[in-house]
Every structure is written in structure tokens, then in C-alpha cells.
């Protein structure tokens, strides 16, 4: 085996190891060895970014990155770097960088940091593995690992509320994992588990097993839908917001919900294929479900008075955009869905960073307490505004690009009602985000002063490690929107994915 290991097959493994090994080493790092931990973290990130850069180059030149290991009969462990997985990996690596810096600042002086960063790295490794997974079984493996490595992060605070949220999180995600397992096992029982193929591999068997395929699809989507927070499987997400802010950021932007959405993309495009899923009349119900989730979650977000909770419901709604785009089953909508994977990540991570900054700096958790924040923390508030406006779909911030492609995609496949849903969702987004901005920029600061005021009178409005990541992602969200037309933008890459994978 090792003789056959060339650099193209080793690279996917190395990419996973580049966060896994630092993660394991961090577990062994004593609590007080702050520098060692930081160095380990950053080394891992830098190595990963370099490796991802290598792979990006390779894939854009058409190289094949594939690693295989025997596992189950007819279902080996396959790691495979294609354009779609790179989209996700690049996102997660970059946001891992931002979130790690943020987390170092956020957790300064708090206990159990080694454990935290250890699981944090494991979580990223699982996410990357999931992106690189070359078949369903491998995907399942990393999907479950992701659940396990995220749980300690969710309950990191160890308070009763955190534990409750953690239990709910586990109940949902493990249940989802079990359903996914059932679906994958069912497909395997029918036609084994080949690699993901652009256009899917079910079409030729469709006459023999249509019932089985439909059931497997429902099972898998239900399993993935838990993480992608499709109604009625979304309840864990708003509760999981009790986790520390970097975790929420990671959960909502990269790791967990995206894993679900990414899985849905894989299942629909690379397992079933658009043609087969349409023939089996599977996409239409998924479309309805996604649309219902978008509206439902937005309406629920309106009533949340906790900032992070509101953001959580917004995530539920926004991640459904991806599902919606997938379910529309057309190339333009596919671009919208895939690009929203990145865009939503950038914007939501910004929002959670900012929410964390408010909480850490001024002890602000509720919407009502945001009055006059713009005066005390203008930079954070500005980043927050960018994220929020982007979510609404205000151009030229990233969210607008995805919304536009989704809308065009819906019209392309003759589903104009989806445009109505998108419009309604945008309105609701505005209804629950704009009041926050209003309070921040136009509200009057509390006369009695802030509840607490850390970092007051220092060079920056808050700890620089908390501020820089938020600004970084906010600027990125604008840049990917403004320069969406360039080849290296997420949009350009998404179009490459779609052209390579779906139009053949």
C-alpha cells in the first residue's frame, strides 16, 4: 500500500492529518502551556492552508486526488478531492483560522483550554474529512465523528443549560446519524457503495429499486436534515447557542449545519443525480420542505429576544437556501446553492463573532440591550451590520449573489413561486435583523452605563483577537460579493464545479 502512495493520494490524508495531529497533541498539552498550544494550533492551520492551496491548484488543473483503504466489503474508505470538496475545505480552513484566533482571545484565562482546542481541531478534521469523503460510507464515518467531536464543544461551559443543550444536540444528531446510516446501508444493500460520481450512479438501477431508492432518500435526507436543520428537525440548533461564541460560530458557519447541507448536495447530485431524483419525484417535496423551513424559521426568529438565539433561527432559515437550491435541480440554482455554502458561512461567522464580542465586552446578550452599541463598539457593530445586511440580501454583500442565483435558478426550472419564497424570506430577514442594527446605531446607550465594560480605554474597543477575525470575515463577505465575477471567488469556483460536475 505504502509503495502505491503517491503525493496525489497522500494529499487528502495529509489535509486531514494537518488538523488531527495538532489536535491530539493539544490534548496532551498542559493547561498552562499557552504558547505551545497556540503554536500547535497555528502550525496546523498554516500547514493545512498550504496543503489546501496545493490541492486547489491541482484540481483547477484537473489532477485527481484519491486515497483508498479497505473497510467494508464493496465499500472502501475513499478520500477524494474534487472541486466541490475543495469549496468546502477552503471555507472551513479559512474560517478555522479566523475562529481559532478568535477562540484564543475569547477563552483567555478560562479553564480547560487544551480540551477545548483539542476537540476544536478534531471537529475541523472531521469536517474536512467529510468534505473529502469519496463515497457514502466514508461520509457517514466523518459525519458521526463530527457529531462526537462537536458535543464536548457544545457542553464546554458545563453549566446545566449547556448540558441540556448538549443532550438535545446529541439526541437530534445521533438520531439523524442513525437514520443516515439506515439510508446508506439500504443503498449499499441494493447496489453497493461506489464512489460519488457527478450525475449520480443510481439511474441505471432505477427500474428495479425505485421504492428502495425513495426510502433511502427519505432516510438520508432526514438524517442530513437534522444537521442542516430542516424543519421539524431544527430544534437543537437554537438551543445549542449556549455554547461559547467560537463554537457557535463554527457550528453555524462551517462544521455542523454545513455538513448537513453539504451532504444533501452530495446525495442529490453525486449519488442520485438530478435526473434520477427527479424521476423518483424526490426533489419537489424537498423543495417544499426547504421553502417551509426558510419561512418558518424566519418567523420564529422574529420573536427571539436573545441575540444568539435569533441568529440561530436565522441559520436555520439560511441553510435551507442551500437545500432549496439543491432541490431546484437546475444548474443555475446549483451554483446558488453551492456558493451559498460559502457565503452563508462567512456572514454567519461574522455575526456570531460580533455577538460574542458584545457578550464578552459589555455583557450584552439580549436584543434590548443593544441600544447605542455603535458608539461604544463601532467596528464590531459595523461588522455585525455587514453580516446582517448580507443575510437580508443587500448588495453588494455576499448573500445577495446567492439569492440572485437561487432566484434565477428557480425561474430557470419553472418554479416561479420560489422567487416569492425568497422575497418573503428576505423581508422577514430584514424584519428581524434591522431592529438590531437600529438599536446598535440609533439607540441611546444606557444612561446607567454598561452592565460590564471590559477592555475599556484600550487601544481597540475589545480584545484585538476578538475584533480582527470579525472584521476579517466581514471584509471577506463584502469582497466575495463585490468581486463575485472573478475566477477565484466562491462564485467562480461554484460555476466551475457546476460546469464540471453537473453539465455533462
Amino acid at each position, binding site marked *: 500500500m505504502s509503495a502505491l502512495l503517491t503525493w496525489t493520494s497522500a494529499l487528502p490524508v495529509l489535509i486531514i492529518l494537518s488538523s488531527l495531529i495538532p489536535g491530539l497533541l493539544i490534548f496532551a498539552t498542559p493547561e498552562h502551556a499557552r504558547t505551545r498550544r497556540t503554536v500547535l494550533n497555528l502550525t496546523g492551520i498554516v500547514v493545512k492552508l498550504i496543503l489546501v492551496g496545493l490541492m486547489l491548484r491541482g484540481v483547477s488543473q484537473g489532477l485527481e486526488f484519491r486515497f483508498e483503504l479497505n*473497510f467494508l*466489503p464493496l465499500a472502501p474508505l475513499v478520500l477524494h478531492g474534487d472541486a466541490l470538496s475543495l469549496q468546502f475545505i477552503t471555507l472551513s480552513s479559512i474560517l478555522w483560522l479566523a475562529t481559532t484566533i478568535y477562540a484564543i482571545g475569547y477563552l483567555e484565562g478560562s479553564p480547560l483550554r487544551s480540551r477545548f482546542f483539542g476537540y476544536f481541531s478534531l471537529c475541523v478534521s472531521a469536517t474536512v474529512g467529510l468534505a473529502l469523503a469519496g463515497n457514502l460510507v466514508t461520509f457517514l464515518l466523518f459525519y*458521526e465523528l463530527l457529531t462526537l467531536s462537536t458535543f464536548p464543544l457544545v457542553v464546554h461551559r458545563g453549566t*446545566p443549560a449547556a448540558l441540556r443543550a448538549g443532550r438535545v444536540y446529541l439526541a437530534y444528531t445521533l438520531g439523524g*446519524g442513525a437514520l443516515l*446510516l439506515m439510508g446508506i446501508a*439500504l443503498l*449499499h*444493500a*441494493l447496489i453497493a457503495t461506489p464512489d460519488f460520481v457527478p450525475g449520480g450512479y443510481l439511474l441505471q438501477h432505477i427500474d428495479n429499486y425505485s421504492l428502495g431508492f425513495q426510502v433511502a432518500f427519505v432516510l438520508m435526507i432526514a438524517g442530513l436534515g437534522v444537521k442542516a436543520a430542516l424543519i421539524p428537525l431544527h430544534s437543537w440548533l437554537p438551543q445549542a447557542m449556549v455554547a461559547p461564541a467560537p463554537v457557535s460560530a463554527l457550528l453555524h458557519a462551517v462544521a455542523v449545519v454545513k455538513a448537513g447541507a453539504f451532504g444533501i448536495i452530495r446525495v442529490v447530485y453525486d449519488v442520485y443525480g438530478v435526473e434520477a431524483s427527479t424521476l423518483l419525484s424526490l426533489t419537489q417535496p424537498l423543495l417544499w420542505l426547504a421553502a417551509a423551513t426558510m419561512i418558518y424559521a424566519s418567523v420564529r426568529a422574529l420573536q427571539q429576544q436573545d441575540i444568539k438565539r435569533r441568529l440561530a433561527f436565522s441559520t436555520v432559515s439560511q441553510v435551507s437556501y442551500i437545500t432549496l437550491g439543491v432541490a431546484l435541480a437546475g444548474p443555475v440554482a446549483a451554483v446558488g446553492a453551492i456558493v451559498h455554502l460559502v457565503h452563508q458561512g462567512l456572514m454567519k461567522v461574522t455575526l456570531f463573532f460580533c455577538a460574542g464580542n458584545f457578550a464578552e465586552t459589555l455583557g450584552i446578550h439580549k436584543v434590548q440591550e443593544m441600544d447605542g452599541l455603535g458608539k461604544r463598539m463601532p467596528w464590531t457593530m459595523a461588522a455585525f451590520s455587514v453580516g446582517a445586511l448580507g443575510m437580508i440580501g443587500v448588495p453588494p454583500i455576499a448573500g445577495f449573489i446567492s439569492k440572485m442565483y437561487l432566484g434565477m435558478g428557480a425561474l430557470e426550472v419553472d418554479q416561479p413561486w420560489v422567487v416569492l419564497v425568497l422575497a418573503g424570506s428576505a423581508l422577514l430577514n430584514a424584519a428581524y435583523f434591522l431592529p438590531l442594527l437600529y438599536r446598535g446605531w440609533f439607540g441611546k446607550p444606557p444612561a446607567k452605563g454598561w452592565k460590564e465594560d471590559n477592555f475599556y480605554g484600550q487601544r481597540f474597543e475589545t480584545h484585538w483577537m476578538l475584533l480582527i477575525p470579525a472584521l476579517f470575515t466581514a471584509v471577506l463577505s463584502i469582497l466575495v460579493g463585490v468581486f463575485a465575477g472573478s475566477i477565484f471567488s466562491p462564485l467562480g469556483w461554484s460555476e466551475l464545479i457546476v460546469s464540471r460536475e453537473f453539465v455533462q
Partner: protein
Amino acid sequence: MTYALVSLSVPLFCALLLTLAGPKLDSRHAGQIAIVCSALSLVAAWFALMQMAELNQTILLELGGWESGLAIRLRLNPLSSLLLLFTAFMHVLIGVYAAFSRQGVSRDFWPLSSFLHGSLAALWLSADLFNLYITLELLGLTAVAMVALAGKKAYKPAANYLILSLVASLFYLLGVALIYGRYGSLDVVLLSLQTQSDLLTRIALLIMTAGLMLKAALWPLHLWLPAAHANAPTAVSALLSGLVVKGPLFILFLLWSEVAPVDLAQQIGPVLAIAGMIALVAGGLSAMRSPYIKTLVAYSTVAQLGYAMMALGLLLTWQLPQMHVALWLFVIAHGLAKATLFLAAGEMQATLGTKRISGLRGATQTVPVAMFAFAVAGGSLIGLPPSGGFLAKWVLLQPLLSEPQNWPWAFGVLLGTLVSAAYIFRVVAISFDRARINPPDIRPDRVGHWLALLPALMVWGMALTGDWLIQLLAGSSV
């Protein structure tokens, strides 16, 4: 075959030696001798397995030179060699744990454990109903004695265990007698050619099944297990749950897949499978509600045996060799995982000074390694990929899913998975409670904790050899 005989005889010999030496030998030396013997047995079993993997066929050996029918016949096939290896490994591991962890064991543990090893090895190799009875009885008596090692609090559960174990043996013996009376043979291979589905055979098989189920603590005859396993010393609990209950299961498997006529097997199959499904859920629920750590683990054994029973039942119903693979994968994965669970539970109990699950608050900080081991092993019980438990579940699921009419069974597996996840993560979640940490009474014992982790890592490592294991077991299907 020689290797297998070595693997069998070394522990028996060791048990004799240790018994004869009596109090002259102190616990430490006895332990060392026992561990060395188990290790020798392990090496021998490894060679035996390699040989089997190469030959991939069944070897018969008649001891004592008697004619067929009277002779003690031993049989070696890939399955039995794998089980030999598994048994020896568990004994080495538990032996090392018992000898080196702070939670020491009394001197009497060593001869008993060697004896247990020997009788199990004999059981895997036997191919004769009466031999099986003898090994079963030895196994039962040794196990009871080992439970009683825990001292006063274990006497009553041990006594209950003993009574029921005797009852079970007698049921089995009665069945054997009836079979012999009907066919005049005790040899499994010979019987498999002769048996017919007449009334007497039915009654005999039924009586034997009931006895074996009682002995293997298969639902609904599991009532004695939680008390006995939970009250035994930590090392013993691990052996009991990991190995001992698998003995009667093996006999049950031989009985129905070889001795019984196919039509009878097909009739009893659904009963076993349904019982297995109920066991999964009922055992799981009991584990979920149990207030004590070890009781939870013990009930989880009841639940997990449900998988095995289900695999066996469906194997009989559909006569699918694939199920046989699933059955034994379950047994091995469960054995490894359960060893970790009991060791970790015992270590945590000792360190934190509590038997209650609620006492595990903050365990991720106070006893991190043991808690991690618990969670990792639990993952295999749930069947999270890529653990051994997952491997087994995957193989089990394949035939269940391939035909729509079999899907209800798959639903049972799903339920089982969910319930196992519930009880495992109930413990794991509490251990993250930082608000009200239960401070440890003593410093954690590093050796014990890391040893507890070892089998858990192995059960996850099983995945790497998954393909090979599946092929090996598939080759030995009868």
C-alpha cells in the same frame, strides 16, 4: 490444531498449578504466572488463527482414542480459532489490569480466571453436546465463584446466579439426554445428518434452548445478570460480560445451526429474533433509567445480546450465512467494548467514590482517560463508524435492507441504536457537568485508566481489519 490444543491446555494446566500451590504462592506471583500462561495461550491462538485463515477449513480431533460417539471430539475452524484468540486476549488484558492496577484482586482470582479461560477455550473447541455440557457447567461454577470474590454484598446475587445456572444446566442436560435417547449420538456433526423434526426432537431442542438462554441471560431470562455482573469485582465483571455469556450463546448457535433440522430452525428463528429486538429496547431502557454505573453497563449487556440474538434468529429464519458473520462480529465487538466499559466504570467508581451515575459530574476533568474510554467503547456499542460495533451492525443490516419485507427488522436495529445512544450519552453528558463537580477521593490510577482504554481502541481498530474479519468468518460458515 496443535496450536489450538496448546492454547486450550496451557490455562487449564495453569489453573491446576495455581490451585495446587494454594496459599504458598502469593497473589503477585500467581498473577504473573496466570498472565504468562494467558499470553502463551494467546500466542498459540494467534498461530492457530493464522493457520485457519490459510487453510480455511474445519479440522477434527478425537482425544483419548475412543471410537466416534464416545470420544471427546474437538473441532477447530476459523470461528473457533478467532474466539480462542479473543478469549486469550481478554484474559491477558484483564489479567494485566488485575495485576497492575490499584484495584487489586484477591489471590483466588488467578486460579479461577485461568480455569475460566480453560473452560471457555474448551467450549469453543467442543463439538459434542455432552462436552459442551461439561464446559458449560465449569464455566458457570467458575463464574459464580468469581462473582463471590467481591465479598459479602455479592453473595446473594452469586447464589441466585448459581441456582439459575444450575437450573439452566439441568435443562440443557435433559435436552441432551433426550437427543441422545432419540438418536444415540452426541456428536454435533453426526447429529446434523440425523436429526428430524419430530416431537421428541422439538421438545429436546426447546428445553435446551430455554436452558441456554437462561444461562446466556438472553431476554427474557436475563433477570439474574444485572445484579451478578454489577456486584462482581471490576475485573470479573469485564470477563463475565465480555466472555462468559457468549459461551452458552455459542452452544445455542451450534445447536440450531447444525444440530436442529432446517425446518425447525426456521420455525424458532422468528421467536429468537423478536426476543432479540425486545431485548434491545427493553434492556436499553433499563440501562437508560438505571441509577448506578455498573448496573447500566450490565443492562447494556442484556441489550447488546439482543443484537446477537436477532442475528441468530434471522440466521435461522432465512438460513443466511451472512448473519453468522454479523453474530460473531457482534460478540467480539461487544466483548471488547464491554471490557472497557466495566473497567472504566470500576475505575471511575473507585476514584470518585460513588456507584451512582449522578456522581460522575465533572468526570471529564477528574477522570479524563477513564471517561474517554467509556465514551469510546460506548461509541462501538451504539455502532458509530468505524468501530467494531458498526461493522457488525452493517453486516447485519445488509440482508435486512435488501428486501422491503425485511425492513421491520431493520427498524428494530434502528431502535436499538437509538436506545444505546441514549444510555451511553446519558453518562457522557453528565460527565461534562462542570457546575457541580464531584471531587475524586483518590488520585486516578493511570495504569488502570489507560488499560481500560486499550480494548476500546482495539474495537475501533477492528474496523481496519473489517474486510479480513468478514471474509474469515464468512469462510467458516457451516
